[in-house]
């Protein structure tokens, strides 16, 4: 475990938001605080487009905080800092220790210094030269490159001296909650959690809907979706998950509609239910994990038919991605292992043998007329939903 006294967080895009900047900054700070609250007492404050995170007691684990901060949208860079006394010797010693964790032999470096406390005897350029010289002497194999260094040793002279050598890439994006709310259709597969992650990254709060078809799917399938929502919530914060019973509707579709249209009609109804749930919960758009041509129900023609079922905008962040690219992200955000567990979700059971890949919207609308009481069935399904707040 690395010694961390303080973490500096830099945010990029927000800083360019002009007059709205304070709104974004406040939201980011709130998000950081509520996430860190779960693991201990931390002070989170902001100055000059930097957020400072410090432990308030011994139990507050900075390494654990670092892990959490890496998953908060709106943070571009994360710098774990070691504090020391404001004199050359302890600064040099601390910098040396920080370097030893980076396997410095053979690497190039430079020193960057900021002197906020003007009483410190050396000014910034002098400090850079002085410290650079000491480190060059003491750390074997290190060489100087002020233009393209592999390692940057940062020193800031404030109330104490801050030393840091690592700049960790943050999750990027915008603070969740600064861009409204949208509803994710969350199946148990690989795609939908990734889609939710990508939209949340742009600052959108996530509401989720899952369709449960017991006894055609097991309660394990439901548990799996809850687990996936938990994993996604590591990035997007709190998620309200609506589990809507779908068996009756599914059976009605199977009974009354032509086999080759089963999947597309099912998806249209799922979209309609999600739209209703969205309206009731102040969410303004839908999110799906669809990607053009991935399966029969995601061909261009099928997407046109699904899209037609609702009025709300449907965000499909994976629309132009290959499966491999989606898998890469799902591994990165750690939803992949859960996604590939084998419990069947309602999309994989009752799959027609020959689904239409070029469905005709007029034919579908005609076929759906057989579902004469679908409005009531939808109302009933929503009234029987189970709602879980995932944090």
């Amino acid at each position, binding site marked *: 475990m690395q010694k961390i006294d303080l973490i500096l967080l830099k945010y990029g895009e927000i800083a360019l938001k002009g007059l709205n900047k304070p709104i974004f900054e406040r939201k980011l700070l709130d998000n950081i605080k509520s996430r860190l609250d779960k693991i201990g007492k931390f002070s989170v404050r902001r100055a000059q487009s930097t957020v400072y995170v410090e432990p308030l007691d011994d139990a507050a684990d900075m390494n654990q905080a670092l892990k959490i901060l890496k998953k908060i949208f709106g943070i571009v860079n994360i710098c774990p800092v070691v504090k020391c006394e404001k004199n050359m010797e302890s600064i040099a010693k601390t910098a040396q220790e920080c370097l030893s964790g980076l396997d410095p032999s053979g690497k190039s470096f430079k020193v960057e210094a900021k002197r906020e406390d003007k009483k410190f005897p050396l000014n910034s350029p002098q400090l850079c030269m002085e410290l650079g010289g000491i480190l060059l002497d003491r750390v074997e194999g290190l060489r100087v490159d002020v233009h393209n260094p592999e390692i940057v040793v940062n020193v800031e002279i404030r109330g104490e001296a801050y030393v840091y050598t690592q700049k960790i890439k943050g999750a990027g994006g915008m603070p969740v909650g600064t861009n409204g709310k949208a509803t994710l259709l969350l199946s148990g597969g690989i795609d939908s959690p990734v889609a939710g992650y990508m939209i949340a990254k742009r600052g959108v709060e996530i509401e989720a809907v899952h369709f449960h078809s017991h*006894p055609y799917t*097991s309660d394990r399938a439901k548990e799996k979706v809850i687990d996936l929502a938990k994993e996604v919530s590591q990035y997007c914060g709190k998620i309200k998950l609506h589990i809507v019973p779908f068996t009756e509707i599914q059976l009605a579709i*199977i*009974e009354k509609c032509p*086999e080759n249209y089963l999947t597309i009609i099912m998806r249209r109804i799922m979209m309609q239910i999600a739209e209703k749930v969205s309206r009731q919960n102040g969410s303004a758009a839908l999110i799906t994990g669809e990607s053009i041509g991935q399966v029969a129900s995601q061909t261009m023609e099928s997407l046109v038919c699904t899209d037609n079922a609702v009025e709300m905008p449907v965000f499909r962040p994976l629309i132009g991605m290959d499966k491999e690219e989606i898998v890469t992200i799902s591994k990165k955000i750690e939803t992949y292992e859960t996604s590939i567990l084998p419990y069947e979700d309602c999309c994989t059971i009752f799959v027609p043998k020959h689904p239409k890949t070029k469905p005709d919207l007029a034919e579908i609308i005609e076929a759906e007329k057989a579902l004469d009481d679908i409005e009531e069935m939808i109302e009933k399904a929503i009234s029987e939903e189970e709602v879980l707040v995932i944090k």
Partner: protein
Amino acid sequence: MNSALETVYLDNSATTRVYSESAALALDAMCSSYGNPSSLHRKGIEAEKLIKKAKEQIAVTIKASPAEIYFTSGGTEADNLAIIGGCNANRGNHILSSNVEHPAVMSALQQLEKKGYIVEYIPVQKNGIIDTARFSKMLRKDTVLVTCMFVNNETGAVQPVESMGKIIKKTNPGTLFHIDAVQAYGKLPIDVGSLNADFISLSSHKIHGPKGVGALYVRSKSKLLPVQFGGGQQNGIRPGTENVPGIAGFGLAAEMCHNNMNQKIEKMEYLKQRLKNGILNNIGDVLINTPDANAAPHILNVSFAYVKSEVLLHSLENDGIYVSSGSACSSHKKGPSYVLSALGVDRKMIDGSIRFSLSEFTTEKEIDYTVERLVENVKNIRKLMKR
């Protein structure tokens, strides 16, 4: 739903409800007799006594002596210890088994195959039972081990282990004989003398004892090397601090389950027949995968044509009835049951197979309710599947 029948548990081959007496004893072993059985002080002796008692309770149920009982973490470990530890301690390069063994045996044998042992799997007949004449022919002078289950966990078929033991003793007395009796224990009489077995695996949680504990019977003269190493407990055959609460609970469960065992067996057999007849008389297109004769009293495996077993399982679950599709141990693997495949059951019928497994607590009312719900659910599912 019949509210009087909120839970009809017919998955007793997966695991059983623990006797409350057994659970209470285990709790007591955790909270008051919590000493380490190897400690020299009184607390240690107190715990050691619990183990001694359990050994006696178990030994008497299989007509063994207490010194021949070794505790393990369960059936899987007992199988592994017998198979790997037995082969390591004795000469010979050839192993005989069947093609319907539990994965605990199959996987241990595959490990030995990798090390150069030649393992032959006797194919069972259509009824799931080994033909002893065929077994005799396959037994070789250099056969170091024969390992065979007593009762098949998926179909309930009883293997002719007694005849196999006799054949081994007569033609090849040097060959070790291991019986995986996990599903037979408490459901059939077991007598180590007449079985001529060197090793017998038992499990606690299949007989209303706690999970995480099992036993291996090791005949006093049979040689066995440990497969794990530690502080020398249990003569070094199975080192590691004993699971005292589990062992104490297991011992009591063994005793309780063998009380009036014949009556319990009769009752289970009667209910199994009632279930079978109820299904055969009320539902068409079914196949009974459990043999008529030579079957354990508690397992009935049935294939329903035009039904996906998982869907039927979850429909029954809605009615409060808990069953298994194929074997619970292999439910997390996809693919058809290898046991039913070995019996030559058609793939479509395997996909619709359900295992009902009874216990001494199963009632007639529960069986009748199950038949009633089966009729209804199978009808509904077939309406969709047959389209």
